[in-house]
């Protein structure tokens, strides 16, 4: 069996599971975002009064942090009251940040767990060897009632990353290249595992970016076999005893792909789909109205560090707005400690409080018709960050910072030491 299958088998209380089988799994932790008041509504519609286990639920007020409209404020109010009423202690209020980073910061994610969040990028937690997957509100409400949810055991695709990363090329470029080659629907219903020597060059931050973006190829979950890098990160963070599962030798993947990253250029996904991927030089010189650094994909300390390296002692182009959103309070504090925040602020960054911010196109940095944005986030769908006639390019944090500096898309490799 694959490690993912072993995780699911344990959660289903079975010795073995087979690809395609529908199983009912116990969920170790279920998370709800503030976009999904429907979760509570569905819970009530299904006759729910008391949640199955309040210790296994976490509520994130991150997408609307802090509320910009009365409706948002009212939704968040209902969430808070629900938590207090149900004894849910893990209420991550508007000061904490984006759900996926908050989970990592607080040691709530660990190898071998089944983690379900009302957010498509829950694939992120494959970086820790967890089975993380996103669901909608009603599925989450079922977990609230029963502590369980049904899953179809997915086929697993293996993506082996070989070679040495050139200067200016990051995990984000690698995953954009993969999505561009395989397509936005290649991973639908399937799991994506990353293997290979390049993983040893990636810390947890880059592994999270890699797994996070498998959502953009439709994946149900992602996986990286936990190793000493994972364990070093978790040490002192998680209080859970965890079990690391390993894939049996001879397990047959549904498909295997190999990518040698040695000759890879920095990449960019051009409007309006994440699989519309090119070497960034194809768009060099394209003026940028907004450069956006942040989110669960590209708002970690390492991302702010790269940006600060490019912008320290320089000035953001006066025609470009440079929006920076640390993914979480933890990220913010650490980046402040290291001087990255001061460097970016002095260079002309506009800071937004930790949370999803402009990523989902509701507030804090919307785009006007005809504007161009380069973003370290995950999506460039029409209207994702404001007007449907705005154009969004998805790139690495380095590509975003370099574009902010020059006011146009450039090859970030030229701006790195």
């Amino acid at each position: 069996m694959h490690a993912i299958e072993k995780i699911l088998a344990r959660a289903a209380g079975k010795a073995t599971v087979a690809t395609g089988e529908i199983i009912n799994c116990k969920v170790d932790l279920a998370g709800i975002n503030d976009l999904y008041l429907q979760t509570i509504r569905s819970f009530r519609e299904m006759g729910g009064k008391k949640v199955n286990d309040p210790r296994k639920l976490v509520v994130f007020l991150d997408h609307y942090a802090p509320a910009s409209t009365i409706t948002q404020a009212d939704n968040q109010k209902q969430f808070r009251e629900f938590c207090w009423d149900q004894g849910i202690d893990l209420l991550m209020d508007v000061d904490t940040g984006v759900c996926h980073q908050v989970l990592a910061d607080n040691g709530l994610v660990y190898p071998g767990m089944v983690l379900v969040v009302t957010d498509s990028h829950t694939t992120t937690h494959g970086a820790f060897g967890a089975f993380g997957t996103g669901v909608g509100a009603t599925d989450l409400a079922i977990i609230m009632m029963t502590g369980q949810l049904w899953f179809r055991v997915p086929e697993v695709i293996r993506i082996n990353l070989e070679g040495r990363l050139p200067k200016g090329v990051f995990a984000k470029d690698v995953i954009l290249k993969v999505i561009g080659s395989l397509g936005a629907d290649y991973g639908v219903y399937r799991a994506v595992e990353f293997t290979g020597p390049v993983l040893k060059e990636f810390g947890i931050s880059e592994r999270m970016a890699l797994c996070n973006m498998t959502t953009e190829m439709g994946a149900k979950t992602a996986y990286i076999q936990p190793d000493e890098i994972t364990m070093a990160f978790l040490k002192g963070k998680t209080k859970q005893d965890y079990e690391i599962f390993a894939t049996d030798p001879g397990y047959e993947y549904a498909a295997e792909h190999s990518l040698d990253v040695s000759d890879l250029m920095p990449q960019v996904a051009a409007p309006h789909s994440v699989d519309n991927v090119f070497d960034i030089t194809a768009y060099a010189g394209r003026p940028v109205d907004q450069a956006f650094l942040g989110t669960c994909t590209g708002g970690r300390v390492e991302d702010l560090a790269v940006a600060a390296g490019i912008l320290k002692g320089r000035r953001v182009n006066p025609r470009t707005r440079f929006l920076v959103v640390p993914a979480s309070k933890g990220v913010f504090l650490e980046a402040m400690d290291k001087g990255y925040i001061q460097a970016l602020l002095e260079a002309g960054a506009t800071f937004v409080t930790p949370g999803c911010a402009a990523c989902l196109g509701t507030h804090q940095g919307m785009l006007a018709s005809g504007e161009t944005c380069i973003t370290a986030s995950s999506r460039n769908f029409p209207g994702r960050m404001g007007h449907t006639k705005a154009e969004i390019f998805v790139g690495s944090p380095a590509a975003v910072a370099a574009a902010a500096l020059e006011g146009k898309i450039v090859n970030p490799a030229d701006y790195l030491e």
Partner: protein
Amino acid sequence: MKSIISGKCFVYGANIDTDQIYPGRFLDLTDPDKVAEHAMEGADPSFVKEVGPGDIIVAAANFGCGSSREHAAVTLKTVGVGAILADSFGRIFYRNAINLGVPLLVCPGIAGVVKRGDRLTVDLTTGKVTNETTGAAAQAQALSGYVMEILAGGGIKPMIKEKYGQ
């Protein structure tokens, strides 16, 4: 559950994501009737004016990819969409729509053989699709037993309510 669905169809291309089905800026709405006012707004602003009960959406690959927002399924259910046929679906959207009792059928190539406004009939039990306007036929993949069970019960909420309601 009605096992035969018949309606006029709306045809779209590949990768219609949930931001196009239901734009992010309206995610704070929760009342289904209010949510329904923005159905397909990002992809096709005229959809909401023209759609009627039982109408069918036809698309190429990966319909409903992107975010987990259940609003995308709620908005289409509330305007009365009878079924959605596509080459493939975003997996969270698939679960959300089935949970709400909206039949989703995988029917490769379907977007190539129907035009907007054609009348389609879909037999959910056999997967047979007939274009009443042109006489063309297509075959959708059969729905799994569990999915049929959910649809037959009018969505997953009544099922869970009966078993676990407090």
